[in-house]
């Protein structure tokens, strides 16, 4: 009698990499996992407090009398100190990780596209990314944030001399805060507290001039009038 299952073949499951792609993806995943794990090691309590400050009603911004070219108002002293601590901690955490500019971009894409993640979880990725940028050997960084679900806050925090960031897309609050000699060029809109505590460097806004009244009012509200296209210190 013929075995009805004779047509079935034994297939040995291949272990290991079938094509080099498997190796590249695994390596890339390892770096990303490392970066994300270290981000989760940051002081979550401090992050929550800073996120709460970012989520406060907008009229607080106007009441503080903040202007991008003036001195840091008192209301920002504590948030800036907290941001500084998170930044320092980030620098320590990433000290032993090897990564490239592409890894930083991939991290931005990963966090920027996630709809399901709460802003509290990714709200301060900008600080972490700023630490990654300053610790990286490269000096030129170009990011494309168009189509991202969430805006990055604190991008360009303490950006050092010789570093240049070009952003295509919109940024959140505290863009270029405590800028330290670096150059930040933004082709998009900016949130509130731009250039807060900036010591030296250059921030340039290359997007089209705001055409709508709403947008003009928003810029004035944030202490970044339409006439200001460049902040140099």
């Amino acid at each position, binding site marked *: 009698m013929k075995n009805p299952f004779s047509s079935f073949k034994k297939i040995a499951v291949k272990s290991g990499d079938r*094509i*080099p*792609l498997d190796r590249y*993806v695994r*390596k890339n995943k390892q770096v990303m996992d490392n970066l994300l794990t270290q981000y989760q090691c940051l002081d979550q309590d401090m992050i929550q407090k800073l996120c709460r400050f970012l989520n406060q009603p907008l009229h607080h911004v106007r009441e503080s009398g903040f202007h991008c070219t003036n001195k840091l108002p008192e209301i920002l002293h504590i948030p800036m100190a907290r941001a500084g601590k998170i930044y320092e901690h980030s620098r320590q955490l990433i000290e032993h990780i090897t990564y490239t500019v592409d890894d930083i*971009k991939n991290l931005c894409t990963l966090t920027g596209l996630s709809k399901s993640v709460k802003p509290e979880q990714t709200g301060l990725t900008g600080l972490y990314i700023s630490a990654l940028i300053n610790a990286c050997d490269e000096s030129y960084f*170009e990011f*494309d944030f*168009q*189509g991202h679900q969430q805006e990055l806050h604190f991008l360009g925090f303490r950006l050092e001399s010789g570093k240049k960031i070009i952003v295509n897309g919109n940024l959140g609050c505290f863009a270029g805060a405590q800028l330290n000699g670096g150059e930040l060029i933004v082709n998009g809109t900016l949130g509130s507290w731009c250039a807060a505590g900036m010591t030296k460097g250059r921030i340039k806004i290359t997007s089209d001039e705001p055409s709508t009244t709403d947008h003009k009012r928003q810029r004035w509200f944030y202490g970044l009038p339409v006439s200001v296209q460049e902040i140099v210190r």
Partner: protein
Amino acid sequence: MQDLNDILTNIWPKIRDDHFFPELPTPEIIDGGERVGLEIKGKKISLSRSFIEQMSRRLPPGLIIEGLLDHAVSHYTYCPWDFYTHIKIYKEAKSVLENKTMARKVSDCFMDVVADTHCVRQKKTPLPEIYKISPKGKLDEVVCALYQKIWGIDLGVDKFENTALRLSGIPYLDRRRWPESMRRFALVIKELNQEDAFRKDNAGKEDESHKFQREDKNQSSLDNHSMDQYSPRQIEDGLQKLARESESPMEFNAILEDVEEEISRVMQTKGKKMGLGKGSRLDGDALYYMKLAQNYALHIQKRRMERSGALYPYNHVPWEAGQPFHDIDPFTSYGKLLPGLTKSWNRIEGEIYGHETGTPDCMVIIDSSASMVAPQKKNSHAVLGAACAVDAYLRKGSSVAVYNFSDADAGDEFILNYSRDKRKIYDGLCRYFGGGTRLHVKNIQAFQTDRLPDIFMITDMQITNLGNLIRYFNECENRITVVVIGNNLESKQFRKTMALQHNVQIYGVENQSDIPEIVLGKIREFFNHSR
């Protein structure tokens, strides 16, 4: 040379075996199409004779056919798989590249990389051989450089080493991460394009987004990734999901406009309207609300019973002197005619399945004055709420009439009589006047029929002649559902006046995003009460 059809007949069973027997009809070889190796339309794979003959100068035709079929079947079984995945991948490419042609080309390229890599990883395929000998444009060279890297096979490309290295870390075979992967892929290609434009800047200004397109237009490619390969059903499902994921009608429209021509072709050839008239443009806004409403399907109870008017014997009661004799039941009265002992029948009015066992028709009254959100610009939850109701009535086989008003005295009103034409109805709902708010009650009265249609109204109640409307609703016997947006003085007045009207149900909505949920639940409740 052996006939190509014979080769195809011999190879096809092997391909089916290799790809775990996909549900595809036998492919065919067609004349023409020199620059595209294959086409897929409605699951049917067509291979180009001239392409195969051209390539067979350097490779046996059997291998070329096998490679092309591997490529086509991988697209069908792995990536993009369906219309929704295709459009989602394209959407990500468009958000980075902002140019339709470029986004189309790069997203097609990404899908090729995924399908081919899946194939190369799973089985022995002649695809690398074909890529090795095929003529290449700039983008093809980039892709071949990438293939060299991730497949570990030499394809004779010695350029774009850095770009290939950057592209090699993308998890092409992780289905869940395709949107993110597409974005990373597009970013690298965009930067490469910009670098190239920068280098060639001295040679004169040119539209950099068309660079790859122009350089590649004379090159052959394996397939054309047309959107008309999908079935109308897949397209409808895909658009429904796309509408759900889009933040605004504008975002939905931006994608729809790019693929409009191809999907209209499919829908028209299959005789489907999808709310779109034959030969007319797709109305993106109407389609957006139509598809979005399908995600919030309402359940409407049919009107079950109606009084027949006839009396029938229900139970026995003692007969009393003076009561008619014809109701006496002789069987339970033991043949006696004595008050108290004799039983007579108590008759009550019967309920029968009447003529109207279905859902009644519905007239939708929608306010499109300046105080309402313009449905073209933002997600108008008023239009969405009305669309949900319309969708429910149409699904139950009823007809819908639309009265869309702003300042009716100035001619800002749209009237559509009872109809089941989705296109006309949704066009009516999406019409936005943005003027004052005044309605003509006589135009609403004109919708009344003997079958008492349901009335569904969405407004913010800031109607200048609200008194007329209230008077009319007081006279109506129809079931009336009113959704009031916002909490203003007029809405309070309306609620107060209508409090005693049992046939009028009012739902206040503070936050417009609550409308679909509230309408869903309350309408069911409303209809259940009416049993």
